[in-house]
């Protein structure tokens, strides 16, 4: 696992000048939730007053029961949702203050594993995994990297099949592979081992582990307490939208 070496270049593409004197920029901090609250309905708080800092290259487990706010926290991180109050900073850049284009460039630095996989049913497994490169319009040869990750996750043999022809676990592996092939400097995974058997879960977890060791910041949301014991990463527990 190699973390994207174009980190600095990509940050320039986001085109948001990093103000080193500002309150938001804390050296060596990758993620900063600054008093973040999220309200879904008029008075239903999904998250309330979250203050969280994650260092660059850190491995963080987000745990909590269903409805604790794990997915909301991750969605705020990659800008699918906007906070009702407070700010979310990624490498000093306020996600909620970015234009759509800048947010798109920020997302290109992230590998996101969605809870519902978000695979396209009318495309083959290989096309699904290559989707980020397809939408970026990248010209570089990415097939070797894709093949390597697919073989590592043991899904290379399914490359020409369609997602509906795969089991839930295999679909999840394809979704994980799509997040990993872009070699991101931040991995955001929402229950990435939820549908996997214990052996596959450990294999997948090891891949995340290697990404972390290579320098990527990993945010791993899970309700599987056993997995958290496999890594010395920090555990952040959410309870009814608050940090426990």
């Amino acid at each position, binding site marked *: 696992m190699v973390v994207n070496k174009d980190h600095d270049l990509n940050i320039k593409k986001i085109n948001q000048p990093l103000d080193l004197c500002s309150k938001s920029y804390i050296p060596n901090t990758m993620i900063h939730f600054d008093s973040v609250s999220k309200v879904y309905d008029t008075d239903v708080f999904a998250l309330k007053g979250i203050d969280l800092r994650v260092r660059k290259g850190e491995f963080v487990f987000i745990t909590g029961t269903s409805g604790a706010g794990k997915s909301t926290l991750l969605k705020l991180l990659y800008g699918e949702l906007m906070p009702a109050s407070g700010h979310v900073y990624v490498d000093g850049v306020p996600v909620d203050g970015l234009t759509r*284009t800048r947010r*798109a460039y920020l997302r290109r630095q992230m590998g996101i594993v969605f809870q519902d996989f978000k695979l396209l049913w009318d495309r083959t497994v290989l096309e699904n995994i290559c989707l*980020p490169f*397809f939408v*970026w319009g990248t010209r570089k040869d990415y097939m070797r990297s894709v093949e390597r990750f697919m073989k590592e996750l043991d899904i290379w043999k399914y490359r020409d099949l369609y997602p509906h022809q795969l089991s839930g676990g295999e679909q999840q592996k394809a979704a994980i592979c799509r997040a990993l092939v872009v070699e991101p400097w931040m991995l955001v995974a929402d229950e990435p081992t939820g549908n996997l058997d214990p052996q596959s879960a450990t294999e997948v977890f090891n891949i995340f582990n290697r990404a972390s060791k290579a320098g990527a910041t990993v945010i791993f949301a899970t309700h599987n307490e056993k997995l958290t014991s496999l890594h010395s990463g920090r555990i952040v527990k959410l309870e009814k939208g608050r940090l426990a």
Partner: protein
Amino acid sequence: MMRIINEALEDILKHRMTSMLMVSIIAVSVFVSSLFLSLVFNLDAFQSRWSKNVRLYVFTVENADINLIQEETKKITGVISSQKYFSEEAVDILKKKFPGQDVAFSSTLVPSFIEIRTGVNELDQVRTALEKIEGVEDIVVNSAWFDALSKLLSVIKYVASAVIFLLLAMALVMIAYSSRIGVLERKPEISLMRLCGATEWRLRTPYMCSGIILGFIGGGLGIAAYLLLKSFLQGTAVTFMSSWQELPLLQIAALYLCSIFVGAVGNLAAFFRGSHE
């Protein structure tokens, strides 16, 4: 760019029925618009022809040399033609026109006159110059019919232009609605692409591109239908078609561009509405 075009073509082929519907909408609206545009263009030509056909009647004082006055009128700038009629000639014309009423016309009642043809823009200038000629007693201008005709033609032109505009606007709205079905179908894919780092431009371009392609095809069909109809009517020797002028290439090109614009904007509108719903 090729990738975007491929994506657009794939989308067109995938939603064949919607694409055919959109092509038909554009083709029909362009065809009908071209007919109206042709009408507007020919009305313009008609008006311009008639605007050079305003007639003034110059009556001279008794014993004036009508030949000399006619020579003078020919020298005036803006005069297209000048024709003199002696009272005997005028009486002959009237007698031919109203046979059986010969007694009513005598050369003492109908004076000699000069008929001058000029353009509507030069009318005042010619009239002033005629008044200055010695021997001219009265000038009668018959331009009321022209004013009435001009007003009528203007109204028809405005209505036709409004119909063209409305047709294209309706085509745009209909395309936006029919294309939205495809966008809604692809909404999960679009939102996933967004989450994978696609810029809005990257997401919009294939839609714009497919709109351009559909507009190109639909516009081409509409204009081809217009040209076919035109040649068919000319072939069947419909009398009025002989003086009917062809639409200039520039106007056909403008209509074609409009159809491409309608396709692209309609599809983009569908994308904006569908993907953000």
